[in-house]
């Protein structure tokens, strides 16, 4: 039996890119599990009938969105150096999954308040002028219908959207925005896209875009979460 004090919770910060962004959290968890075994990482296993390693992800990330700052907390049975774990995991992770940092945390995931996203939008209509109209479309109320287990719920997400900016460069629109990550106020970037597609149907008809979570902040939306 392993007692409580022989467990060490380590926070792993990682990026999720390429094909991997189409992999759900559940599937990512399976990938991480097998990587633990490949890396021979001294992970702590739950006790009982069906032992399994324990780890938590910071925020949900929708399928199709890549990320430069994901976190997961893992449980070790040895207090290894963060840099050592980074090295071990990177040797065992697929190329689209990279550990950028690992440390023993002093904070909780529940302290995360905001996440920043970058959307690269390609559209035949991309221009400085369209960049302006996109920002206009986000001025005022942003009424969306939120799908949840209990059904469809209309909601104005404007209070949970901050610092939107949009620039036109190299034929592409770069749209940046801060979205709430609160438990009941979590805004999926998809809601903004849906809203923009509705507001600018012609311009978005042939648009393709990539979405990336670029930074995570505390409640104030200014201090970077660690």
């Amino acid at each position: 039996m392993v007692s409580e004090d022989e467990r060490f919770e380590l926070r792993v910060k990682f990026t999720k890119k390429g094909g991997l962004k189409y992999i759900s959290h559940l599937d990512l968890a399976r990938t991480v599990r097998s990587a633990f075994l490949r890396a021979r990482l001294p992970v702590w296993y739950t006790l009982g009938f069906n032992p399994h390693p324990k780890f938590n992800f910071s925020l949900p990330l929708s399928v199709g969105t890549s990320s430069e700052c994901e976190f997961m907390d893992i449980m070790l049975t040895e207090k290894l150096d963060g840099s050592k774990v980074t090295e071990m995991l990177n040797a065992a992770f697929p190329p689209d999954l990279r550990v950028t940092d690992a440390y023993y945390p002093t904070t909780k995931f529940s302290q995360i308040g905001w996440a920043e996203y970058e959307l690269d939008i390609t559209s035949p209509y991309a221009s400085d002028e369209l960049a302006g109209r996109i920002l206009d479309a986000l001025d005022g109320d942003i009424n969306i219908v939120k799908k949840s287990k209990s059904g469809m719920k209309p909601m104005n997400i404007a209070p949970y959207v901050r610092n939107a900016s949009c620039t036109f460069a190299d034929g592409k629109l770069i749209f940046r925005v801060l979205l709430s990550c609160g438990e009941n106020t979590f805004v999926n970037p998809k809601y903004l896209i849906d809203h923009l597609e509705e507001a600018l149907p012609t311009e978005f008809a042939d648009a393709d875009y990539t979405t990336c979570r670029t930074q995570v902040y505390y409640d104030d939306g200014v201090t970077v979460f660690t």
Partner: protein
Amino acid sequence: MRIPEKILKKVEKPGRYVGGEWGQVIKDKKDVNVRFAFCFPDTYEIGMSNLGVRILYDIMNKIPDVWCERAYAPWTDMEDYMRANDIPLWAIESSDELREFDIVGFTLQYELCYTSVLNMLNLAKIPLLSADRGADSPIVVCGGPCAYNAEPMADFVDIFIIGEGEYAMTDLIDEYRKYKSGMSKEDFLHEAAKIEGFYVPSMYTVEYNPDGTIKRYVPKYDDVPMKIKKRIVADMDKSPFPENLVMPYIETVQDRIVLEVYRGCIRGCRFCQAGMTYRPVREKTVETLNEQAKKLAENTGYDEITLSSLSISDYSCIDHLTDEMLKWTDDRKISLSLPSLRVNSFTKELMDKISTVRTGGITFAPEAGTQRLRDVINKNITKEELLRACHVAFAGGKTQVKLYFMQGLPTETDEDLDGILELSRDVIEEFYHTPERMKRTPQVTLSTACFIPKPFTPFQWEAQCDYDELIRRQRYVVSQNNDRRIKYNYHNAAVSRIEAVFARGDRKLCAVLSEAARRGMRLDSWEEFFDYEQWLDVFAAVGIDPAFYANREFGEDEWLPWDVIDVGVSKEFLLRERHNAHAGKTTVSCAEKCSGCGANKLGGECTWCPKTKDSN
């Protein structure tokens, strides 16, 4: 990536299409001379689990200037987007179009995948007919279990690889290099046809009798063989086995290490094609297996290992093997699983030892309901053995048993069908005769398939029951079953009938497949896409009677479409076994006595076979 993001965002399970998995092989195109697209004519989840693909992917990619990539059948949502946006089928690793490859290879695992093969070629914009593919098209090769009689695919395929592919693939690539350095396709195919195990259908013309049966095969050149001999791996211990696997992100049907313990089968079930075509039995040693398992576990991070073979408990060192493996698997939280247990090997010791046997469901395959019929099919297990095994399972805390049966077997009567239910009731009775049983209601689930006469089996000459009769027999069992503890499941008889047509098909069926492809039929192994009426319509449209193939008893002196292939097991043996079947006589396993099937002439390090003069 070739597929626009907005499409990937819309399709179901986009993880099927993006690659990037741990273990996938990426090469620099400038170092590559031969590009091979290994295609599986079904979804990613099914294809990723195939052991043959895993082995050959590894072998080919170990050749420095060969790059083997993977391709799968897209699901229908993706297919619709591909067609609407004019996106040709691509390979996962490089996302390059299939038509840019040198060789496009398909594995034929079941007859109903044929339409998907053609649909994939079509999606790849590769001409379907071998004759229409010139030097600018890839060479299309097919292998796998159905290649033993893939005459219905003869017009579409340049080369069939007959038998085990481990060494054949390197031969193919070597021959292809010569083609690439300046040879006509005809000359290339002619040369390939001389390599052992290479069946080049275009090198033979088929003549038919007025009644539609085959008169003879005429080779196009004097130097191509009259019979194509199956390739085997002589020494399984020395045979290449991957030390690494591509680790799928999304869940696949066999998401674990599959450790192949031996090839072949010592039994001789008379309906079973694999049991004959994989002969002779060649085992790996415990040392080799343990070593391979360890390497794979280390390199993949899988936490489950399945010991795989046609009948795992017949492995001569099964106890030794499981003991050796359990020495390290438990520590590493790796579970061992054993599929396909025979009733006589199901013991308390085994249940105690193997956790998946302890926790998983249990399945036995009596295949027929009465001893008489089990003797006919040479399924050498008795009611008493089955009940003993069930007793062990019930004492170990199980309450549910799954039993596999076949319906429509040669000589089957309603009495044999009654026997299926009687046997099930006996199993239920046994539950109540087990003092250590759980306080719960027992359940027997019957899973019954329809008999399909398969090439290279003693039953290859038998007719499949008429469709209506298959349905009647299924309804009969339903009507006779009044026990709620017995759940009766049965396969779709229409699917089995179409399988029977293609299993014993000849080249005339190429026209049927062309028409099916023209109509966009595919994914026929999926109930939701299989359309029996559509199939009947296709047969009618090309003027072919499916009953000629499925429901006709083939003549013992008839030239069979697969007579051009030599699988080792002789036709005389199969005929002898057929006659034994009808006489109700059983044949003992290879472990007890050699029954002279002929497979030992293929040579190899066989476990049970007597040596022959010409084996080496």
